[in-house]
């Protein structure tokens, strides 16, 4: 087949016919585990709900209407904006953003610390970071609740030491949810930043110091911009699952800390659920996240193209 007529390019080997079979696993994986479920959700969000869970194949916008439009308790009032779910979304974004920030503040120095240890020790530190993740997330979250409840070891210990007079209530507060999210997703921040810092060429820091930059300026002008892909990856990896998390808010928070994840989860649970509504909420969440990522990617590629302007 590889005759004189073969179009130019690489070394002209016979790999071209193999392209499709070789890419098959990738396509299948993406198709079955990504495209199909999302497409299913998209379709479900336009169907009619069945009362004991499930759907009826009648296309309708009812789910989105329920999310955005308020027609009163009996559906007979003039339509107004429904704030309930938007408020839950807003609170979730805020919570997830805060958790991401905390993870970054703790994760960056941690990653830096590990990446600057001698190569022989790094494995041990990384191992220590990942050990808790060998235990199921549910168990860990319950354990955390046990630790911080009013008569748990934390409060009792602090009271025994005389630091506290009365237990501090943490369970069912925003703080507890934050703690849960932070604890759940910290490694997702540490690992990508670690990978970036490990590749960082420390001669760049020396060059900056040589050119009269202080340590702080070197961090701001050289280190952070160079390891930024790792930071961004870490933030995405923490923010996105935090946004959809339901274990930490369910177990550690209360009604006041209700988040999107719990809202969606409830729609698919038991006979009280509403599959199309859960699907619609998922789609809205996904659209939001995708838009945010696209805006970021846009601004990042623009910034890369105009460094000289500074």
């Amino acid at each position, binding site marked *: 087949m590889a005759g004189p007529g073969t179009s130019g390019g690489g070394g002209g080997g016979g790999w071209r016919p193999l392209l499709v079979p070789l890419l098959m696993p990738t396509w299948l994986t993406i198709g079955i585990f990504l495209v199909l479920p999302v497409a299913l959700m998209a379709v479900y969000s336009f169907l009619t709900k069945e009362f004991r869970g499930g759907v009826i194949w009648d296309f309708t916008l009812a789910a989105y209407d329920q999310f955005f439009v308020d027609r009163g308790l009996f559906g007979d009032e003039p339509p107004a904006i429904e704030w309930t779910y938007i408020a839950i979304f807003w609170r979730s974004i805020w919570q997830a953003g805060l958790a991401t920030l905390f993870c970054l503040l703790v994760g960056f120095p941690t990653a830096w610390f590990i990446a600057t240890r001698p190569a022989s020790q790094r494995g041990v530190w990384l191992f220590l970071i990942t050990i808790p993740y060998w235990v199921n997330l549910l168990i860990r979250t319950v354990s955390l609740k046990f630790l911080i409840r009013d008569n748990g070891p934390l409060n009792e210990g602090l009271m025994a030491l005389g630091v506290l007079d009365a237990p501090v209530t943490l369970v069912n507060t925003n703080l507890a949810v934050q703690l849960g999210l932070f604890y759940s997703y910290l490694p997702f921040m540490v690992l990508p930043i670690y990978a970036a810092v490990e590749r960082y*060429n420390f*001669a*760049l820091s*020396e*060059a*900056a*110091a*040589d*050119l*009269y*930059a*202080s340590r702080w*300026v070197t961090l701001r*002008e*050289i280190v952070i*911009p*160079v390891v930024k892909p790792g930071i961004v990856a870490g933030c995405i990896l923490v923010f996105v699952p935090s946004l959809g998390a339901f274990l930490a808010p369910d177990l550690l928070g209360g009604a006041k800390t209700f988040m999107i994840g719990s809202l969606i989860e409830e729609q698919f649970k038991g006979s009280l659920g509403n599959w199309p509504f859960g699907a619609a909420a998922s789609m809205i969440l996904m659209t939001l996240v995708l838009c945010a990522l696209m805006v970021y990617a846009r601004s990042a590629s623009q910034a890369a193209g105009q*460094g*000289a302007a*500074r």
Partner: protein
Amino acid sequence: MAAVQDAVDIRNVTKRYGSFTALDGVSLGIADNEFFTLLGPSGCGKTTLLRMIAGFEEITQGEIRLFGDPIAGRDPNHRPVNTVFQHYALFPHMTVRDNVAFGLKMKGMDAASRRARAERMLEMVHLSAFADRMPAQLSGGQQQRVALARALAPEPRVLLLDEPLSALDLKLRQAMRVELKQLQEETGITFIFVTHDQEEALTMSDRIAVMSAGQVQQIGTAREIYEAPVNRFVADFIGETNLIEVEVTRVDGDRAEVVLPGGHRLTCPSASRTGGRHALSIRPERMSVVAEAGADMLAVVERVVYLGTDLQLMVRLEGGAEFHVRLQNSARIAVPEPGARIGLRIEDGAARLLAD
């Protein structure tokens, strides 16, 4: 000469890493406006010394002064010294122009002036057209020149260069040698240049310090080091030489009389003050082939290697020592055949007795 202050004054500096001594009592004075080269084989401590001047490495013992000021304890960003790093260390997220302007920005120069100065520096290294590129979009030689422009832009009083040419190909390396030397003369900045390439050192430097195993072996001009090496190491490391063991019969100040293989006596310059057996260094190109009658040494030709401009004769001396002779290739010389017996004559002053 007396009162002129050295730009860099290195006094008895020692550097230890744990129990390993990387530098052992190094003392050097580098004059202002000088192109000074640290030359030595890999691992001899050149980079370590440079890094101590720049402030990246602590001094274990001794003192370094910059224009009379002791600099111990001053951070790198507070020293009037800039470095061209071996692998350039250009900031990958900044354009060429921003790289060059970085030091100026840190010194607090306003945006318009630093832009103008960055342009001027880029012009000097012939890279004006590349100001808006990112470092990754440049060739090795271009990156090297950006690193140079970046280090020169803040007008340091001393520029440190750590093997800046080692990653370039031969042609470019030769061109850059000339450019670097010109740049140093134009700017009047003191250059301290590190290399393990003796040709590089010989062609560019005002003075060279030859280092080995953490110690300075000899300091001098290219000519002094090439023609009057003080010891075996320097003679062997710089250029090509023949080292033969000889018996010293008389020492008279800086001259000595020695017995050559074959029994002839020769009086030559000496770095050694003692009698006994010492190494005699004779450069292969400072020999001529003569009739046996007027010869200093007799030898048998083993191989003749044609090198274009030169001919190399590999011969064996009376007594069995191997010896190289280099002759300029010209139509007038008769090329000896392998196996022929020839006489060798040592040019006046070409042989030198070494201290060990």
